[in-house]
């Protein structure tokens, strides 16, 4: 891997906190993403519960006006950008390189940079709570409300998301190159596990969707900080531009979130039915098609904007088309289970719970695609119900399932299955109790983002049930935390292949060693490990002799670069030019250093690898 004639440097290995701050190991970065994403998930969840506390009864006076708007804005922004995205990146980091038989990702340094940018962006955004108030213009931040009619909080939204977004974008490029260039011998595209396929399509969508939000945030930032007039109609501006740019990003973002979860569901369903995926090529095709169509339908979020019947009809019908590949996926999962030996582990419960829930979300999705009918649904609780069925019922179920599935591979410990089932049932029942009534609330005339409602409009029962459900989901989350804590106290003794897995990640020890594969495996079929198992073997055939393994050096620079942008962000917000210069300076100097001093990495020698192997077997 390394160029000719280079001397291998002595191993640079840090321990303790420094190890985590400097790591470029995709598995550790995955864990960092999980911790950070989990932390923001708890914040976003708390905000959700506060929202439901306020709406439990009519005319409540706990969180009113701007405070309530801060809660909804931060709940949405946090959950999408700071909880869902990083947990997806956590699993992608932890699993994708293992599934393709790679020792590393293509750009370990950039991978770390991506994480730290996301994290500092998230911290910047959430620091608004302590610095004069959180953003309150909705997670969609439509101007002119967000540009000229909102307080300082929106600046945190703009700069925090900008920094976090760049991090995510870098992560997307990293995974694309990793999957294209770093597959093990024999791992053709049509042998990629479905999770890797969905990670691939999602990364491509990240690549092409995130620049649109970058630009929208730049325009909003210029309007707010430099008195530009993009969204000021009095000076020739047009606020609808924001809506287009935001949704050109925002709609693909929905598929960015859901596709990897489709992948996770595919993995879980195959393993716990003990069957290969039914219609693998159709699944791949459907994934790519959904990714493609995801870019063609953004304006279905804008049927009420006044685009005219032609645009509305085209975008409506185009949106309906997405139901077709999605339907293909649902039926393929059902027929994967058909004839199998289904084991109801917690992971499988989440996958099984996912199917009807996601189908309901898909149903309301098709209903929403009808422009004339959408004029009734738009911006009501019907929409809230729909996208929570898709994002929580679809994505969160998938992610929780994925965590139960891959926890042993990430941490070397098995999550407790009994607690897991309690976690699932509370979450499942709480979820439906929260969001099912909201369909009716919307149709009965309750707009979204309202901090209260008058009695006597028929909203009382639905809101009350919805709040109870939210509390149940809170209980489920507490159970999950207890499960994690309990598990963490137990010895690290998870077997390499606890579920009778089918793909490459189950061919190596749990947790995966630093170099993933002692010898790069030779892939001889779809479901690489299963192929070997069926051929009567216990492990993969190596594609290379045992040799010294080249590793990238750990580096503190990704963290420092992210801190630089974090500082610059504050400089922009408070118009402090020296702070801007200082922050950007730190980042740029790091880039210079990175360019000037080549990282030759270090090597893990065969005897160390042998020792590890023996340790596992003993």
């Amino acid at each position: 891997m390394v160029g000719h004639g280079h001397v291998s440097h002595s191993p640079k290995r840090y321990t303790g906190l420094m190890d985590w701050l400097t790591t470029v190991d995709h598995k550790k970065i995955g864990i960092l993403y999980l911790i950070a994403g989990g932390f923001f998930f708890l914040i976003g969840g708390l905000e959700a519960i506060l929202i439901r506390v306020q709406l439990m009864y009519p005319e409540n006076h706990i969180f009113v006006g701007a405070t309530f708007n801060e809660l909804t804005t931060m709940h949405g922004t946090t959950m999408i950008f700071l909880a869902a995205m990083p947990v997806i990146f956590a699993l992608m980091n932890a699993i994708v390189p293992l599934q393709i038989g790679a020792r590393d990702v293509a750009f370990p340094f950039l991978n770390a940079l991506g994480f730290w940018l996301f994290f500092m962006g998230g911290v910047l955004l959430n620091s608004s709570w302590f610095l004069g108030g959180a953003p309150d213009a909705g997670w969609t931040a439509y101007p002119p409300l967000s540009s000229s009619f909102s307080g300082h909080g929106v600046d945190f939204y703009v700069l925090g998301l900008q920094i976090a977004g760049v991090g995510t974008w870098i992560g997307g490029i990293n995974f694309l190159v990793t999957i294209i260039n770093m597959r093990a011998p024999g791992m053709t595209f049509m042998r990629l596990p479905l999770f890797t396929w969905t990670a691939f399509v999602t990364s491509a969508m990240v690549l092409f969707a995130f620049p649109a939000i970058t630009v929208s945030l730049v325009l909003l930032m210029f309007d707010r900080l430099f008195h530009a007039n993009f969204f000021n109609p009095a000076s020739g501006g047009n606020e609808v531009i924001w809506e287009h740019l935001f949704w050109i990003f925002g709609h693909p973002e929905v598929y960015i979130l859901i596709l990897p979860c489709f992948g996770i569901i595919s993995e879980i369903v195959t393993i716990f039915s003990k069957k290969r995926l039914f219609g693998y090529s159709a699944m791949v095709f459907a994934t790519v098609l959904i990714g493609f169509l995801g870019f063609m339908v953004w304006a279905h979020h804008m049927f009420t904007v006044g685009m005219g019947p032609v645009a509305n009809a085209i975008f409506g019908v185009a949106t309906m088309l997405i139901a077709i590949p999605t339907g293909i996926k649902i039926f393929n999962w059902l027929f994967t289970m058909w004839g199998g030996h289904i084991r109801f582990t917690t992971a499988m419960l989440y996958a099984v719970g996912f199917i009807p829930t996601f189908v309901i979300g898909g149903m309301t999705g098709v209903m929403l695609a009808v422009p004339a009918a959408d004029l009734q649904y738009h911006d009501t609780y019907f929409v809230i119900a729909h996208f929570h069925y898709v994002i929580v019922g679809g994505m969160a179920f998938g992610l929780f399932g994925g965590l139960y599935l891959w926890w042993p591979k990430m941490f070397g410990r098995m999550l407790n299955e009994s607690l897991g089932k309690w976690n699932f049932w509370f979450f499942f029942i709480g979820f439906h109790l929260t969001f099912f009534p909201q369909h009716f609330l919307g149709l009965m005339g309750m707009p979204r983002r309202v901090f209260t409602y008058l009695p006597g409009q028929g909203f009382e029962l639905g809101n009350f049930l919805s709040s109870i459900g939210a509390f149940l989901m809170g209980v489920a989350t507490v159970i999950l935390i207890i499960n994690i804590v309990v598990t963490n106290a137990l010895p690290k003794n998870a077997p390499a292949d606890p579920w009778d897995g089918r793909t490459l990640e189950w061919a190596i020890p749990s947790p995966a060693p630093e170099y993933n594969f002692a010898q790069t495996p030779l892939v001889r079929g779809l479901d690489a490990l299963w192929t070997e198992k069926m051929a009567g073997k216990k492990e993969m055939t190596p594609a290379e002799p045992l040799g010294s393994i080249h590793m990238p050096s750990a580096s503190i620079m990704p963290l420092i670069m992210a801190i630089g942008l974090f500082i610059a962000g504050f400089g922009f917000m408070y118009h402090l030019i020296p702070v801007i210069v200082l922050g950007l300076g730190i980042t740029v100097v790091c880039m210079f250093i990175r360019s000037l001093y080549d990282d030759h990495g270090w090597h893990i020698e065969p005897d160390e690898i042998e020792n590890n192997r023996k340790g596992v077997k003993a």
Partner: protein
Amino acid sequence: MSGWKKASRLLPLFGAVILALTGCGDPYLSALDPKGPVAEAQLSLVMLSFYIMVGVFVVVMVIFTYVLIKFRKRPGQNGVPKQVEGNHKLEIIWTVIPILLLLILAVPTVITTFHLSEKKTGDDVLKVKVTAHQFWWEFEYPDLGLATGQDLYIPTGKRIEFELTSADVIHSFWVPALAGKTDTNPGQTNHMWMQADQPGVYKGKCAELCGPSHALMDFKVVAVTPFDFKSWADKMKAAVNRQPTTATAQQGAQVFQQNCIGCHAIAGKGGKLGPNLTAFGDRDKVAGILEFKKENIQRWIKSPQEVKPGNKMPSFGGKLSDQDISNLADYLQTLKVIK
């Protein structure tokens, strides 16, 4: 699986909840209870798409339930189930049938979308210009030379053609029982129409986040017979000649002239920064949300920020004496054209 038993025990409860949820709903608010052709057309699309989707859901659930029960791993069941690569016939079926279903849905969708966005002019329509403000609604009748705030009067059986815009941020104009919503974009004009078939007071809401008091930006559409509408319009025009009769109301009128007229118009005189108050006494809500009574009018004038945070009206609590505010409230209550 004890879980399944638990879930099945919950089913009847779930059914009861659904019934309760669908049964309720304010008849003058709910989109499920349309009172005009636009909302009816929209509800019929809602129901068409709903029935198609329920069909799909039932098919999925039947297969799903069968699979989960039939193919559970039984104790002692070992070995490897048959590894099936796929089935072209099945895959074609579940690709083609959804396409057909979507075609069935797409045709009425496109027709209704175009139908609902047709513009009409002429004598058989009434034109209304809607301007949304943080956090109230301004309605102007350009052909009648009239304006109201918060309460929109319309004749039944007549097509109302709206031109919608906003004075500040994006709002969305929504009267669920009569028609779906249309955004009001500052600097742009949107179009929609609606028609009420029966007299009634229909509730309207702002449906786009517009600031701290977005939740409180309610309004009313008062549909009256064409005869009553004509008489209402005549009385609105005649309101110029209206005089307060009681002493307190007369004093209140003076307070109004000195403090309020810069923003609020009555009978064509006054500013447009706040709602037109010509027919204020006919309203059944103060500021769209409080019960219509004198104390609430006084409360609103004294400290509007407490009622609707973030609105533009200054607080008169420290500026006017309690007596002045009381007189002003008396005067405002006399501003009736119907009741």
